[in-house]
């Protein structure tokens, strides 16, 4: 009865609320993580060697492209910003216990609406930019809102709907950039119009501070960092964050405490879509400048991975997003080493596994230790030596 009940699987993904001194579990997890990362690096080196490259050259290229100089850092941060925004949204949904995996589609819809506003709305630059970013967020939120509505009215699985809506979003964007009446480019001269939108005019592009080759920091990066700080505080300290954690960790207890899951969980899902949409807007106005079917470029999927590795903590998502952004930036330098650049995806996947697997391994290990050291179904007593992690009655 008092043997610790099984932790819900979600709690490994979500992590725990509140601050905590490192426990034996935490040290074990850290140790396993180090081992897993080393194994992942070794495997990556092996893969590079097998595919005919030299691991040292590859590391060299990755570093040159990402963190060797200020230009590299600029590239890293440009890549990290949308990853971070997507990850923040994923943190919100994960904490509420609803697993949104459709950020890629939400990001596309956001980029599409942002593009629509940027190309059609007349007005001063700051205003059009703001409206475009809000529209992008609204678009992403509406897209995940469809999943929320289906879940809370009919009980349709959120993972399934968010995933499948991603493919629909890709088709919608394809349609938009292939329809002259919607967003297809006007074309120059007699050349065939390609499946993409017109470029967003100069004055609507997101500003950045600093000039190449110095470090440049775009508005997208600032936006993402500010959002991270705000969200971290809200989740740790606000009533909304408390309720969100409660809902994710025990929906029944949350309902008893007066939380309406459809409202709080539904809004969390919409909000997570909105962050993905905002990321789409930032990519559009910050780096790509026109809507293309490939504009999402896996930022949605990778952002979700960032949240997974950070275990839904906004504060941790920041360094992880920088790491993943660095890998993206560095991968563009891989071509010179003769190694296919998709190898970076494999490395990234290995790293994700190396970070995601340890808590689960550690828990399984801990459970084995506990099973050996605690009597199942037995309350600890003051006289009998209590099991280590239990407080006696």
């Amino acid at each position, binding site marked *: 009865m008092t043997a610790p009940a099984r932790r819900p699987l979600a709690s490994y993904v979500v992590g725990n*609320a509140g601050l*905590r001194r490192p426990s034996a579990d935490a040290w074990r997890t850290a140790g396993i993580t180090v081992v897993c990362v080393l194994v992942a690096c070794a495997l990556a080196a092996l893969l590079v060697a097998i595919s005919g490259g030299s691991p040292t050259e590859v590391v060299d290229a990755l570093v040159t492209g990402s963190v060797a100089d200020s230009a590299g850092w600029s590239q890293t941060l440009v890549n990290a910003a949308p990853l971070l925004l997507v990850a923040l949204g994923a943190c919100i949904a994960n904490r509420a216990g609803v697993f949104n995996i459709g950020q890629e589609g939400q990001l596309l819809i956001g980029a599409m609406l942002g593009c629509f506003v940027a190309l059609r709305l007349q007005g001063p630059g700051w205003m059009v930019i703001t409206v475009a970013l809000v529209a992008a967020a609204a678009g992403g939120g509406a897209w995940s809102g469809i999943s929320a509505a289906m879940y809370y009215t009919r009980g349709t699985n959120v993972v399934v709907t968010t995933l499948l809506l991603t493919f629909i979003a890709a088709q919608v964007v394809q349609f938009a950039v292939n329809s002259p009446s919607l967003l297809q480019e006007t074309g120059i001269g007699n050349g065939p119009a390609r499946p993409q939108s017109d470029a967003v005019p100069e004055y609507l592009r997101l500003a950045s501070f600093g000039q190449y080759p110095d470090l440049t920091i775009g508005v997208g990066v600032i936006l993402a960092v500010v959002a991270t700080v705000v969200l971290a505080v*809200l989740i740790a*300290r606000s*009533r909304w964050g408390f309720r969100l*954690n*409660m809902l994710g960790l025990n929906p029944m207890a*949350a309902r008893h405490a007066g939380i309406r899951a459809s409202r709080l969980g539904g809004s969390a899902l919409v909000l997570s879509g909105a962050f993905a949409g905002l990321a789409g807007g930032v990519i559009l106005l910050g780096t790509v400048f026109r809507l293309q079917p490939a504009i999402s470029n896996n930022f949605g999927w990778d952002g979700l991975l960032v949240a997974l590795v950070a275990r839904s903590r906004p504060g941790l998502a920041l360094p992880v997003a920088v790491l993943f952004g660095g890998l993206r930036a560095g991968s563009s330098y891989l071509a010179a080493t003769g190694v296919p650049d998709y190898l970076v995806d494999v490395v990234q996947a290995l790293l994700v596994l190396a970070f995601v697997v340890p808590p689960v391994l550690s828990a399984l290990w801990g459970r084995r230790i506990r099973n050996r050291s605690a009597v199942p179904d037995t309350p600890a*007593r003051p006289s*009998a030596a209590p099991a280590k992690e239990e407080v006696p009655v």
Partner: protein
Amino acid sequence: MSHDRARTDGSVPALELRGISKRYGPVVACDAVDLTVERGEVHGLLGENGAGKSTLMKVLMGLVSPDAGEIHRDGARVEVHTPQQAAGHGLGMVHQHFSLIEPLTVWENVALGEPGRIDRDAVCADVEAVGARYGLTIDPTARVERLSAGERQRVELIKALRRDPKVLVLDEPTSVLTIAESAALFEVLRTSVAAEGRGVILISHKLAEITAATDVVTVLRRGRLAFHCRTADTSAPELARRMVGRDVSLQAEGAALGLVVTDDPAKHLSPVLAGGLSAVPAEPPAPQAPADVPGTAALALHGLRLAGPDGRVLLDSLDLEVATGEIVALYGVEGNGQATLGDLLSGLIAPDAGEVHVAGRPVALDRPGALHEAGVGVIPEDRHRSGVVLDMSVADNLVMTDLRRYSGRLLMRRAKIRAQAEELVERFAIRTPSIDAPLRTLSGGNQQRVVLARELSAEPTVLVAAQPTHGLDVGAIEDMFARLREAAASGVAVLLISTELEEVMALASRIAVISSGRITGVLDVADASPQRLGMLVGGEAA
């Protein structure tokens, strides 16, 4: 202790456990326990939660391998490492929680797990033959999901008996049975099973059951063999003393151990109440408002009706009133709608029809938290399910139902939360390393205190306590009883949902009996006898 007893008749015991020891890390679950079961004997195994009964039986059934000790069957040493080996040696067990597959029929469940080809007609014939022999009639083609708890137990018994066990173990067999069904079960054990020379081990924490139904009794305490005796040579108070390790005088403890009333209608009360044990139920706290004046009841349930997703009626026009300062018990056999009512009063589900009034005002049941705001505190039956969030801290768990009180417009007020948590930890004697410790690290009794502290700190009008002592040991039960009485004395209307007759008799001033989702009768505790309650529990009017 028993194996070195000289055997004068030269017979060999059906089963002998010698020096069984099992440690889980620093905790000793079984410490050199000996147990001897003769042929044709009903052997009672008594002990508190955690005394080692279950571990010992798991060793016997090959579910746990012991650190030391031997098992002998008919005088020969046997190795039991798997449940299959246990079955091969003629050991059968009926577990406390039935291991039946509900959508399957009786004969399919009986045949389940047997190797080789399954012959439907042969199994059905077997079921009927075994049923006829032991008076356990059941239709082999009935679906288990349609059977009552008593009938399901019959299926388990038939399943075990069909394999012709030489020793049959029954783990807490009466926890889901009505009084009449319990009596019938003991009748079968005594007149048929034991009479055929089979040994029976009856595990229980209820003294009345042990004294009524066994020949020999063994008491375990903290993993050690505490006492062994012929049942006829001992008394319930002595067994209670052996079980707890000190004199049992408190009312609450007596009730916790099943001393106040007995489950057996045939011989209730008489032998049990000697030796300093009070037969009088605790003075019921005087109700401050008469319960029969309409509109003044602190909690009034009117015509609650609820059907499950499969269309089964869970609550059927349920009416009940609890007055301020009164403890009303809702008594019945498990699975008659208590869990549903508990969920409803926790605000987890809304009824199809009916109303809940708190202090005369109707509550909007479809709004989460409405019941709590109206002043209904709940100690849920399964605290892990809806009572606590295991991965949040003790402090967070103590305030989570009243967030508005502990937060500003946006941010939580940590200082206020900590102050409240420190105070409640102190007042309710919650043992925790710190208020920041995750609730998961607390023992069951302390987790339950967290729930109680939180619900009472909201100064509720009504407190619903569903099986509040389930899984707690005697000390924690005593504490819970005292807190519930204290709450009632301070003017809270307490609704105690319980399946333990002793608990009900010890705490409540009125007893409402629930059967198939209906209240079949409400008795003052003074008018309640096990027979009358038994009839109501079975669905008959008394």
